[in-house]
């Protein structure tokens, strides 16, 4: 995720893109007329015209983006037209669209590939299924299929509609930005893409550790009660209890909440997964037991111990009375942001989501973060956020230019993900220069990053697709390290505007950087992985929803004291009898078939 600088879309008037319409030559003429000096354009790579380059080499406070070497045999001549599907939505400058933008123009110059849109969809889950089903039914699959949901992928594989790319991959895939980037976790990236030892697609990977929890806590409240960051579950309880007893929160008397929690114990914000993890279990996950079989964690005796603890905490007012009705963003804005709560177990991005509101509402609020607390036996675990998304990139059976697409993907992966290239998007799309009056001006001294800056989403293929699909899951931490190790050493008066913007972050963005680097370091060490990574089994499809309801209801009832703790035992037997045993058999059948 990229950092956003304070900025409002409404500040941008259409005129901001006026200069973009000018071609390179007329722009040069305009600038010569205006400034009287010939502009210094970046050195063109081979035949790539300077106006197609990202970066701002001409601005005195700008930077030069280095383009990676053009892949062998490229650009192909004559150009090749390839059709592809895309996830939307998108907005472009005047006159540009998905098939004709800064990205496609540069891409065409580098690779010789002309992309045509076959179809697109927005975030909706049903919508993507609908569009792919229509494409399959009408026998008009695009050459390259972006973020294909597993359900569709399975259908395509069953009907032999997917191109086997094993040999082409071995021959042309970039060794660093594709092969090495996707080698983490002992081949975890390839869990869907690899089918019986053959590569049938490319993985869809996201940022590593993006959902891994840390302990976010109010430093000023810790100071007020004279305590330090808790390192064990017991200390966590003591601190939360002290916060509640001292009633440090904003709002009505007695409204302070100890620990933020949401309707699902294992979720993406204000989660309780590190508490379950402290007993080595994770509700809803399948993990191998000593005998090598996968077991469903939610029915294990350790869960009962955790529920007993949470039940006691709830009774003592550590959680909000109505915590089980809150969706995660409601805890972010309603508890953390509203300063009624000083502890949340949330990912590194909490520094950008929830915490800023807290600081806005109460400028004296000081946040800090720590590692998740350890359990009574010293176990310290959390839910592992799998960077491999349940979708793939695949090619139509019989498509002849897989090699070209792979080369393109490798080139963009290197351009976008190697911090040394200084790729920060295109002027006029991802950032603007403004003069002192706030008017857009390519020679202006003020850098203005576009809202929701996400400069890598407009080209087909993994590093550039919408939804921040990357090939290097440690992309963000690599950037943070580069900024800290390289940019920070540049003398202040030699820094360009971009370095300045990203080095001069406020307190929260520094916390975010620290937390992000730490979370990625612990990513593969502290995570409990869900080892069941395929389609729902037959019984899951039939009984899974009602079993999940039973589980959620039982957990809430036990924690809130509506049911006795021993109801857990009857839940475990009901779960087994209501399809759980059969699901376990089916899951293990798949699991042993894997090995």
């Amino acid at each position, binding site marked *: *995720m*990229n950092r*956003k600088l304070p900025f*409002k*879309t*409404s500040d*941008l008037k259409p005129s901001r893109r006026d200069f973009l319409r000018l071609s390179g030559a007329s722009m040069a003429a305009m600038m010569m007329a205006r400034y009287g000096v010939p502009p210094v354009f970046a050195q063109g790579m081979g035949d790539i015209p300077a106006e197609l380059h990202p970066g701002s080499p001409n601005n005195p406070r700008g930077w030069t983006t280095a383009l990676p070497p053009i892949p062998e045999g490229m650009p192909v001549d004559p150009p090749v037209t390839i059709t592809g599907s895309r996830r*939307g*939505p*998108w*907005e472009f400058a005047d006159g540009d*669209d*998905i098939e004709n933008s800064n990205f496609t123009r540069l891409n065409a110059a580098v690779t010789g590939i002309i992309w045509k*849109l*076959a*179809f*697109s*969809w*927005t*975030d*909706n889950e049903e*919508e993507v299924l*609908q*569009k792919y089903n*229509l494409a399959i*039914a*009408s026998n008009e699959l695009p050459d390259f299929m972006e973020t294909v949901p597993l359900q569709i992928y399975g259908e395509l594989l069953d009907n032999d509609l997917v191109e086997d790319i094993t040999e082409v991959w071995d021959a042309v895939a970039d060794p660093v930005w594709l092969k090495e980037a996707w080698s983490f976790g002992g081949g975890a990236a390839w869990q869907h893409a690899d089918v019986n030892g053959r590569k049938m697609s490319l993985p869809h990977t*996201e*940022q590593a550790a*993006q*959902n891994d929890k840390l302990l976010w806590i109010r430093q000023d409240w810790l100071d007020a009660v004279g305590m330090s960051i808790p390192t064990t579950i017991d200390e966590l309880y003591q601190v939360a209890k002290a916060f509640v007893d001292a009633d440090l929160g904003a709002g009505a008397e007695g409204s302070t909440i100890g620990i933020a929690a949401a309707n*699902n114990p*294992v*979720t*993406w*914000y204000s989660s309780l997964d590190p508490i379950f993890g402290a007993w080595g279990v994770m509700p809803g996950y399948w993990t191998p037991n000593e005998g090598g079989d996968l077991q469903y964690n939610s029915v294990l005796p350790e869960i009962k111990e955790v529920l007993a603890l949470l039940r006691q905490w709830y009774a003592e007012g550590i959680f909000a009375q109505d915590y089980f009705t809150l*969706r*995660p*963003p*409601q805890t*972010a*804005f*309603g508890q953390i*942001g*509203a300063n009624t709560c000083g502890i949340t177990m949330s*990912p590194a*991005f909490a520094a*950008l*989501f929830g915490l800023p*509101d807290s600081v*806005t*509402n109460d400028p004296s609020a000081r946040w800090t973060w720590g590692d998740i607390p350890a359990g009574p036996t010293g176990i310290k675990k959390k839910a592992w956020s799998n*960077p491999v*998304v*349940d979708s793939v990139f695949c090619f139509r059976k019989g498509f002849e230019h897989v090699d070209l697409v792979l080369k393109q993907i490798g080139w963009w992966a290197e351009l976008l993900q190697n911090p040394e290239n200084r790729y920060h998007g295109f002027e006029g799309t991802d950032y603007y220069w403004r003069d002192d009056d706030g008017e857009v001006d390519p020679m202006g001294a003020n850098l203005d990053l576009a809202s*929701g800056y*996400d400069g890598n989403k407009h080209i087909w293929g993994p590093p550039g697709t*919408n*939804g*921040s699909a990357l090939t290097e899951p440690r992309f963000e931490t690599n950037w943070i390290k580069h900024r800290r190790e390289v940019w920070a050493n540049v003398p202040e008066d030699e820094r360009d505007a971009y370095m300045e913007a990203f080095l001069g972050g406020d307190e929260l963005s520094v916390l975010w950087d620290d937390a992000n680097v730490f979370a990625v370091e612990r990513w593969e060490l502290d995570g409990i992985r869900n080892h069941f990574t395929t389609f729902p089994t037959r019984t899951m499809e039939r009984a899974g929803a009602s079993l999940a309801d039973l589980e959620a209801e039982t957990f809430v009832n036990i924690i809130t004291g509506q049911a006795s703790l021993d109801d857990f035992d009857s839940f475990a037997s009901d779960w087994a009898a209501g399809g759980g045993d059969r699901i376990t058999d089916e899951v293990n059948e798949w699991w042993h078939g894997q090995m």
Partner: protein
Amino acid sequence: MIRDSSWFSRFFDGFNYVLLTVFALLCLAPMVHIFAVSLSGRAPATAGFVSFWPIDFTLENYEEVMGSRTFSRSFIISVARVLSGTSLNMFLIILTAYPLSKTPRAFKGRAIFVWFFVFAMLFNGGLIPTFFVVRNLGLLNTLGSLILPNALPIFSMILMMNFFRSVPKELEESAFIDGASHWRVLWHIYIPLSLPAIATLTLLSAVNHWNAWFDALIYMTDVANYPMQTYLRTIVVELDLTNVGIDPRDLQRLSDRAIRGAQIIVATVPILVVYPFLQRYFISGIVLGAVKE
């Protein structure tokens, strides 16, 4: 009318008024809530603190909605669809309903045509074959794909036909005696007399076009061509990020409940504005044509 003034009757009336008022308020409440959310600050709106009164009053959400290229484009597409689709609907409804409203003696084979339409109303080819037809006609990603497949709403046409049949025969006969053609009879007798029905059906058709979202989902392969409701549907669906990757856009969407509120209001107001103008026809119109003498 003689009023029954017994206490029970008055109690019953009062009870009805209260009940209906409560129902009316219940229908209004979600709209008022969304309106309040759309005028609230980002944080209180997302935290769910806003009920029926804005907190941290601001117009920023509307500014942002109006400034969005995607939103304004989908709005224009929706308006174009309503204008062209409704005109085409009404034109075809009237042209079809007129001959079918004639007696079988005046129009031989009328029954065959009526059954033809009724059959088409009850049965259709299904989603995929319809998609093929639209695609093979080259209509994908055009306004045509949204207005041509349902260019003649048959149910509305039957309502119109029944309305025409209730127009007294004598008017038409006297016009024919004076030498009027069918065109003249249609435009100068039937249409002026049928304004209530036409207003009603226009409203139905306009509302249908405004609210339709599914056809665009299928026929617009490029998301940039989505009309308003299809676009809205994709943004108001609540996200659950538990098992998916976090995307900066998703995070932004999660914290912009107020903006979504503003989008819903902007999308609803145009069609609400149409109602009062057609309302007086609407109530009398929907029962007219249903009863024949």
